[in-house]
């Protein structure tokens, strides 16, 4: 039997931050920084750029917290800000696209993450990194958000039909890549 108090939900934490308790935003950072970093890393394929985009996303979210619509999901909002931060950086040409080097795309995985990855998982991650950007992003958000197609569509600012099509094609490419492994 657990006596731990239930964790406050995102809406409560946002309301608390807006009411003058900025520490509540810290809990949101703890809750989502890893997922946001993962999205940025998969999008940028560069650990330094991903780190900068993650910081930028949370900074923008903090400054714009008043514009957050309570009926929306915070995860979708922060992913959207992070994704657009990545797109802006890519569009500004601050980073030159590199050759597909999936095994070096994540230069600093934690030791437990390395231990968890068996050959099949490593191959899958490599296959995801090798996908074209539009499919890679959809698969990454699918990984982070599950089958919430509408939320993925909001993050990417795409129609839901396009998201489903991209996801279908991405899975086809992954399946082919894994078969040829």
């Amino acid at each position, binding site marked *: 039997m657990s006596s731990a108090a239930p964790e406050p939900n995102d809406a409560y934490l946002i309301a608390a931050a807006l009411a003058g308790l900025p520490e509540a935003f810290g809990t949101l950072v703890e809750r989502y920084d890893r997922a946001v970093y993962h999205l940025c890393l998969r999008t940028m394929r560069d*650990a330094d750029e991903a780190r900068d985009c*993650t910081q930028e996303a949370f900074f923008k979210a903090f400054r714009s917290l008043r514009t957050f619509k309570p009926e929306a999901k915070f995860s979708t909002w922060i992913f959207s800000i992070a994704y657009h931060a990545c797109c802006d950086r890519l569009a500004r040409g601050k980073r030159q696209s590199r050759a597909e080097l999936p095994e070096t795309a994540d230069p*600093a995985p934690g030791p437990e993450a390395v231990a968890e990855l068996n050959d099949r998982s490593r191959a899958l991650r490599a296959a995801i990194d090798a996908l074209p950007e539009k499919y890679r992003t959809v698969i990454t958000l699918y990984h982070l958000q599950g089958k919430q197609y509408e939320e993925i569509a909001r993050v990417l600012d795409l129609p839901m039909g396009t998201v489903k099509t991209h996801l279908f094609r991405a899975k086809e490419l992954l399946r082919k890549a894994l078969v040829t492994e």
Partner: protein
Amino acid sequence: MNHDESDELDREIFALPLAEPPPGLRAAILRATVYGPAAAAAPFGRFEIAAIGVCLALAAWFGIACLTGDAGTAELGAFLGLLLHALTQPEIIVWLGVGFLTAAWLSVAGTSPLRLPFGNGRAS
């Protein structure tokens, strides 16, 4: 492709661990937000606080003038009459509307170049 293949791939995707953020990332974010400039997440911006302060001061002055009934009340009545007359002019109402809508838009959009993710009316 059959459902079994799709389910298996889904399981594998969802089983992938998230990338490990670099050490110090969370601390850097917290320094820039929670422990940064305190006004960043304040419910009102500086200009809004100033505007609210002016309105409250005017309301307080008006209330005190009404209660004390001092010599300024007659002038205040004349001023309010003039204000009421102005507010019945269509062109003034139009300009006030434009100003109000601009203020509301600025309040929502802010002055940062941040792209509003839900600004396309597709928010849930």
